[in-house]
């Protein structure tokens, strides 16, 4: 089964920068591309960055490591990190790893942006 390599792009929304993720977040994910996309998301100094997982169909332990790195960057710059579009299974994994203690998880973009806008 060929891996669907991670792709990341950024768009600016009124509530914050949205990092659209597509593919698999695993050992095949190009860390540099993820870092570059995150840097682009930070460029306009948003209060919040939203991770859009709607296009992500697989996350493994290396993916958890990569998401933790993004969280560490967000904390270092006192920026909120929000997530949406996770399947129930990955919401559970966010809970088990305690990522959800630090990354607010929402079902969709509308609710995530709404939360980002009011905070």
């Amino acid at each position, binding site marked *: 089964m*060929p891996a669907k390599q991670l792709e990341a792009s950024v768009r600016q929304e009124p509530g914050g920068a949205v990092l659209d993720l597509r593919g698999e977040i695993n050992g095949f994910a190009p860390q540099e591309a993820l870092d570059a996309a995150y840097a682009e998301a930070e460029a306009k100094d948003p209060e919040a960055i939203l991770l859009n997982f709607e296009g992500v169909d697989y996350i493994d332990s290396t993916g958890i490591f990569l998401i933790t790195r993004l969280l560490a960057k967000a904390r270092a710059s006192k920026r909120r990190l929000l997530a949406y579009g996770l399947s129930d299974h990955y919401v559970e*994994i966010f809970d088990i790893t305690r990522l959800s203690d630090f990354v607010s998880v929402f079902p969709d973009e509308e609710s995530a942006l709404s939360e980002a806008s009011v905070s």
Partner: protein
Amino acid sequence: VTAPRSGARRNLADFTLPSVPGNERRAMEEVATAVSGLGLPERTLERLKTAVAEATMNAMEHGNRYNPEVPVKIQVWRLEECLLVRIVDRGGAPPPSPNAELPDLEAKLEGAQSPRGWGLFLIKNMVDEMRVSGNPDHHTIELVINLKREDDAG
């Protein structure tokens, strides 16, 4: 590798995979296909798939050093009250300790703990029981899903 002895048992799958990055996805899908007739709840199936993928990745990486000529062996057994997935590599080093330091996200964020090290933790949390054993020739990890409880829940 010997067959489990307890109770009525049925072998659902028995296959090997070369130790090549990405083959954990093949292991995951083949195990999912093997158990498709058991009617596992979706949540249980997703948890099993993650556990199998992580355990296979560990076996290929740490056990077989990603040597494509050294296979990982995977067996799936339907026992009387549980589902057993057994993953065997040919690592010679001591098997990973199931009691290794628990990953602590806060410590990882503060740099006090390696940012990696989620695999074994995920496996343990995805199944009802995880057993690790080994000898100088191989490591074995067994993943157990209690089917009785699934029946009761369903």
